[in-house]
């Protein structure tokens, strides 16, 4: 999200001491920095160095380490046979049916849940935004599902859908819905949607606050219907907030793990890619194959972020050109 502002700091820093100015990008002009300004930049860089170092230690190192692991045959069961195998783990994983099944399941869950959450979240956001009486109460209670620990909620869903202990299983006739693929996937998605719609609503509500009341009134004066005001006025103004909300949720949804872990443990082909990576790493003790999957998931997440940022022009609120860059 903050890629843009980091690169700015980076560039000035590199240019700083020698006073050389890099070629201006996208036609944005840049004046040489004054002495005081440069000192301030340096101090700023020093101040954020500890945080940057910690980030390097806790994110960059593990990422690089798993890339390194993914290039090896490294199986805790056979410690003596550890060797460098190049990209053959990637060939193994990418030519494996289980991987692509899990990938398909993950994509399905991502697309369906994010789409449903967007619609429901928008509705909830408008309700929360427009409520006059008991606003605090409405907002708090809407957020309750998001406040419950996912694993705990997942266990409630599991018991609810298990014949014998649950009230929901009997509603839909005989049989155990969590043991059939289609119904199990539907339940996983339901649990995901139930849990994260409030989060979506919260992000969208921030966007709703950006819509000026005057604009809506003016549109209303011009005879726009409620639906027209929503699609022609609110949505365009909210677009940045919607894209941010979608980006956050898509990244989250793609890494879905805890609900599946508790509800089906991946039985009947309901594994997500994260579940598959867990199974190969922790249960299979195969660090090579498992890390390969982790790296592939990382790449997939990076692609999603790239598509959102570069193609749809998603940007963090406050980092747009007109806005916050000081």
């Amino acid at each position, binding site marked *: 999200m903050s890629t843009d502002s980091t690169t700015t700091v980076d560039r000035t820093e590199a240019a700083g001491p020698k006073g050389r100015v890099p070629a201006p990008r996208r036609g944005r002009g840049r004046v040489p920095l004054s002495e005081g300004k440069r000192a301030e930049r340096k101090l700023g860089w020093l101040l954020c160095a500890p945080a940057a170092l910690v980030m390097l230690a806790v994110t960059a190192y593990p990422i690089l380490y798993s890339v390194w692991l993914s290039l090896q045959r490294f199986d805790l069961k056979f410690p003596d046979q550890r060797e460098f195998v190049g990209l053959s783990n990637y060939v193994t994983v990418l030519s494996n049916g289980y991987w692509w099944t899990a990938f398909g399941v993950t994509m399905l869950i991502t697309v369906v849940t994010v789409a449903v959450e967007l619609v429901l979240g928008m509705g909830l956001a408008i309700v929360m935004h427009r409520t006059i009486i008991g606003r605090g109460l409405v907002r708090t209670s809407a957020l309750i599902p998001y406040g419950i620990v996912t694993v705990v909620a997942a266990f409630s869903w599991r018991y609810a859908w298990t014949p014998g202990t649950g009230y929901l299983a009997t509603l839909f006739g005989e049989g155990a819905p969590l043991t059939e693929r289609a119904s199990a996937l539907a339940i996983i998605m339901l649990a995901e949607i139930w849990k994260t719609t409030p989060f979506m609503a919260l992000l969208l509500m921030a966007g709703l606050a950006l819509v000026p009341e005057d604009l809506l009134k003016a549109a209303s004066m011009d005879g726009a219907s409620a639906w027209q005001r929503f699609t022609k006025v609110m949505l365009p103004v909210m677009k940045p907030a919607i894209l941010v909300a979608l980006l956050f949720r898509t990244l989250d949804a793609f890494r879905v793990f805890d609900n599946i872990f508790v509800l089906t443990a991946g039985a009947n082909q309901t594994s997500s890619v994260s579940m598959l990576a867990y199974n190969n790493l922790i249960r299979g*003790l195969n660090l090579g194959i498992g890390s390969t999957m982790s790296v592939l998931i990382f790449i997939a997440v990076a692609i999603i972020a790239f598509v959102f940022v570069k193609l749809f022009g998603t940007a963090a609120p406050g980092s747009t050109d007109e806005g916050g860059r000081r």
Partner: protein
Amino acid sequence: MTDPHRGGPARSGRIRLAAGAVALALLAPMAACGSGEDGGIPTINLYYSPEQNLQKVVDDCNAQAGGRYEIKYRVLPRAADEQRVQLVRRLAAEDSGMDVLGLDVTWTQEFASAGWLLEWTGERRAEAERGTLAGPLETAQYEDKLYAAPKNTNVQLLWYRTDLVSQPPRTWDEMINFALGLKGRGQPYRVITMGAQYEGLVVLYNTLVASAGGQILNSEGTKAVFDDGAVRALEVLRDFANAGITTSSFSNTIEDQARLDFQSGAGAFQLNWPFVYPAMQEADPELAKKVKWARFPGVDPNTPSKVTIGGVNLAVSRFSRHPEESFEAATCLRNPEHQKFSAINDGVPPTIESVYAEPEMAEAYPMRDTILAELKDAATRPLSPAYQNISTVLSATLSPPSKIQPERTADRMREAAQDALESKGVLP
């Protein structure tokens, strides 16, 4: 911002104090994880699955130790998978807080190969091997070295209704025919056993392969074989699943479901572990009176079955701070006297042959002769460090049993098992 000295020495002192407090807070739990050597008596942490009366055995061993060590029973989760995950994660991190480990027989080779277990040598090894049945002992070995002491074992038996069947069937074909005959006469006829996609299905398949004289892996455990016997076993399993004599939920049945199905009176036969008998005596004493046991049916009429053994081995972690005391504690926990106690009170069959002859065993184990006969001619699951991975892909390929295509299924399993042995397999 501009004056970095604002705040002065007092402030930096406070910061240092805060940093120190944070460091302490971070380190304190680690220190608490340590040995816990209060009073100089070494604590031996026993990690073992929930077993109701194991604490009494532990107390007894602690009394016998006379202050040389004190065993603390740390109860693992109930599900086998969760037990293994906990052990594996902590051993991979070289956790010294675990001393004696209760390992399922199928994990022993894996943990030994990973270098997490101490070898049993000399007098300790002799003690662990003394009078121990060959099958269970084999599950505790890896590359001709002993890495654990068998604590208890288990085998499945054939349970049948004497009011419906006069003679127990000796082969699967015979059993299927008996059941079809009963079905024709409108009597309870079903053959109930475990067929869900999990370890239980692999146990059944392994028994069939061994009974048909086949092999899954070569005897060194280094290569996937799946020979004619393994294909024959697939035919038996497929024919059984398609004969119309199983329950409708066969491909979703695990141990307890099978027990309940049989207890409800739907079955003429049940293939299951011995725990079903005391449970039946409690739940339906009338039915229990009509039920007898026999050796598991074989594949070939002239060769008795070879049945897969289960059970638990006790191993000592390589990261233990007190290996000597740990070996001693493990030896005590599985000595003949304690095996007898656990067999009677917790229903886990002993690994030491002489224990079966003890008079108290007759009441708790009326079927002990059959168990012993099976144990003396038993089959182990493939003794490979990669067993867990092999088992996962086997159960996925075997399920549902009614869809087995013997030759093709064998080819697919051979390939998947070979991949698992070469760390190339992907687990579902």
